[in-house]
């Protein structure tokens, strides 16, 4: 990092805190602090929805995933547009016209206070843990860049965001989200352009893409119907559909976004903005990872991207590490030559020569992957760190090593922005649910607006500290983006099931919804412990069990209390 990079990052942090805190003015009453007086335009809400969903994990984890696993992850988003349409038809008008502050408040109107409290509790549990993971991702990057300990970095990120969320409420969250989203788009665009311009002179964009395609990195549709396969078109369009319905329709951090819109139409438009833009945007983020992969065909990448773990392994067994590194460099040279030959053969359009060049390249690439795997295993065993993964370190290491002065700062600021936009929305939602679903509902029913806003600020601070503590333990949990989705999948399907019962099943009763939810979560626990089903399918399992059990129990209830 150069001085200019530091100035850019510092300027961003100072601006975002100042911009957030100055929103305190419109947040003195309960409606202003938690719902921005339902006054926000659709484009601001839409950008906030996207910024909330696109955390630093999306930038760091997804690019790393594209580098090592290719574009298969894109299929995860194929169900999102349909989910948005379903939500626009169902929950948006329901919640908006019910005039609620939280999604769970609607469940009390439909069922009872017990169901509201239970669903809100599960939201607090899953999101409280989830926001910790969201803080952990940028902390991982910054700890490498700044040479700070991960704990200090976690508290710097977490507390900075907590401060402006605590004072400015949802207004601060949304308007900073808008600016942060713009910064992220600029950062990504510049990053994409610079990687492209760093390709060797005789390798064009299409040459690079043919290389990536030959090594299987560009798969965007996987049709095998295998429940143990993580990313297929079926898990993306069916299982992820359930996840997105639950996330955008039952998770307060997203529901609160469209509840701040001026009208039902504006709320719907804000969600449909994601429906149109999410897949292309995710494609471009993955493309950055693919470009990093292409770039490293011609320049040797580090054997281990995580410098801290690599140094630990060198200290423990430098002889074996050096031997592995030597082997790795030789294999990379072979692969690089094979890649150049493949590109040349592609240009000459000689089918026989091309087939041979492709075969040689694939063989060299396989050898390269095997050696990298060997190195990763070596680090795991030498450092006695079973959960060690290199995926999250690929992008930040690449940025630091290859980006010019000023651009490093811009991209680091964009990663900060991605992290803070998600963290702020989550903290605001956690505080809203704590204040309105528990404090106002159970402990202080007749308080003033000032009481609730004050409690909301205290709750924001408390959740900020809790999330930082969770983040400390989350830094070694494997691919961080999957960790967040796994956390979500454990509860989301069952929460969705309760809302399906509330909105779609007229015969559903409070007792059915309450016990249906508990059975749903228990079924996901069983599925996760006793089957090999991939986590995305937990959403389907949880939802179906909750709806089925909830409906059956409702049939046994005679009273018609709605």
């Amino acid at each position: 990092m150069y001085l200019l990079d530091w100035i850019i990052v510092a300027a961003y942090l100072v601006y975002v805190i100042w911009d957030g805190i100055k929103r305190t003015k419109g947040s003195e009453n309960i409606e202003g602090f938690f719902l921005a007086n339902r006054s926000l335009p659709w484009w601001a809400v839409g950008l906030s929805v996207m910024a909330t969903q696109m955390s630093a994990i999306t930038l760091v984890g997804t690019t790393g995933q594209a580098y090592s696993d290719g574009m298969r992850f894109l299929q995860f988003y194929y169900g999102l547009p349909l989910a948005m349409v379903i939500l626009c038809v169902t929950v948006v008008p329901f919640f908006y016209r019910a005039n609620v502050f939280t999604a769970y408040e609607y469940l009390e109107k439909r069922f009872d206070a017990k169901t509201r409290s239970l669903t809100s509790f599960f939201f607090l549990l899953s999101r409280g843990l989830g926001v910790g993971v969201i803080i952990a991702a940028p902390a991982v990057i910054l700890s490498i860049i700044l040479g700070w300990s991960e704990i200090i970095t976690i508290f710097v990120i977490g507390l900075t965001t907590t401060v402006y969320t605590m004072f400015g409420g949802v207004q601060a969250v949304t308007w900073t989200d808008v600016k942060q989203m713009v910064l992220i788009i600029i950062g990504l665009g510049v990053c994409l352009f610079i990687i492209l311009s760093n390709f060797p002179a005789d390798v064009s964009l299409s040459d690079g893409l043919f290389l990536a395609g030959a090594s299987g990195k560009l798969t965007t549709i996987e049709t095998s119907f295998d429940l143990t396969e993580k990313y297929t078109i079926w898990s993306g369009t069916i299982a992820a559909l359930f996840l997105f319905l639950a996330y955008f329709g039952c998770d307060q951090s997203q529901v609160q976004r469209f509840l701040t819109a001026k009208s039902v139409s504006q709320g719907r438009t804000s969600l449909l903005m994601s429906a149109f833009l999410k897949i292309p945007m995710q494609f471009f983020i993955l493309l950055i990872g693919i470009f990093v992969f292409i770039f490293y065909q011609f320049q040797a990448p580090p054997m281990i991207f995580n410098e801290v773990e690599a140094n630990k392994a060198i200290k423990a067994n430098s002889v074996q590490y050096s031997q592995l590194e030597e082997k790795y460099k030789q294999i990379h040279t072979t692969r690089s030559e094979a890649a150049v030959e493949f590109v040349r053969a592609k240009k000459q359009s000689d089918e026989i020569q091309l087939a041979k060049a492709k075969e040689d390249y694939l063989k060299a690439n396989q050898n390269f992957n095997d050696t990298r795997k060997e190195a990763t295993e070596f680090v795991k065993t030498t450092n006695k760190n079973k959960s060690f993964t290199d995926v999250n370190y690929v992008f930040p290491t690449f940025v630091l090593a290859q980006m010019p002065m000023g651009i490093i700062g811009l991209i680091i600021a964009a990663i900060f922005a991605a992290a803070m936009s998600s963290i702020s929305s989550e903290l605001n939602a956690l505080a809203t649910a704590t204040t309105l679903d528990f404090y106002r509902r159970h402990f202080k029913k007749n308080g003033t607006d000032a009481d609730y806003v004050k409690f909301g600020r205290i709750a924001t601070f408390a959740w900020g500290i809790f999330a930082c503590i969770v983040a400390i333990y989350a830094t070694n949990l494997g691919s961080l983006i999957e960790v967040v989705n796994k956390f979500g999948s454990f509860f989301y399907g069952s929460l969705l099931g309760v809302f399906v019962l509330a909105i779609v099943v007229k015969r559903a009763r409070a007792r059915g919804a309450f016990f249906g939810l508990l059975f749903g979560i228990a079924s996901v626990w069983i599925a996760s412990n006793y089957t090999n089903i991939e986590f995305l399918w937990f959403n389907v399992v949880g939802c179906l069990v909750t709806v089925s059990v909830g409906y059956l129990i409702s049939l046994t209830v005679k009273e018609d209390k709605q």
Partner: protein
Amino acid sequence: MKIEDTDQQEKIEEYPDAWWYRVYFAVIITTIVVIAALGYFSYYFSN
């Protein structure tokens, strides 16, 4: 002035359902086209 502002807020336009159904249809068709284009992109550069 305040009254005018309030009136403006109350006159927020809500589009009819028929209009929304056309929008939803456009979203689904666009998604199918995008996924097909991505599939073609993958096929083109992998062969």
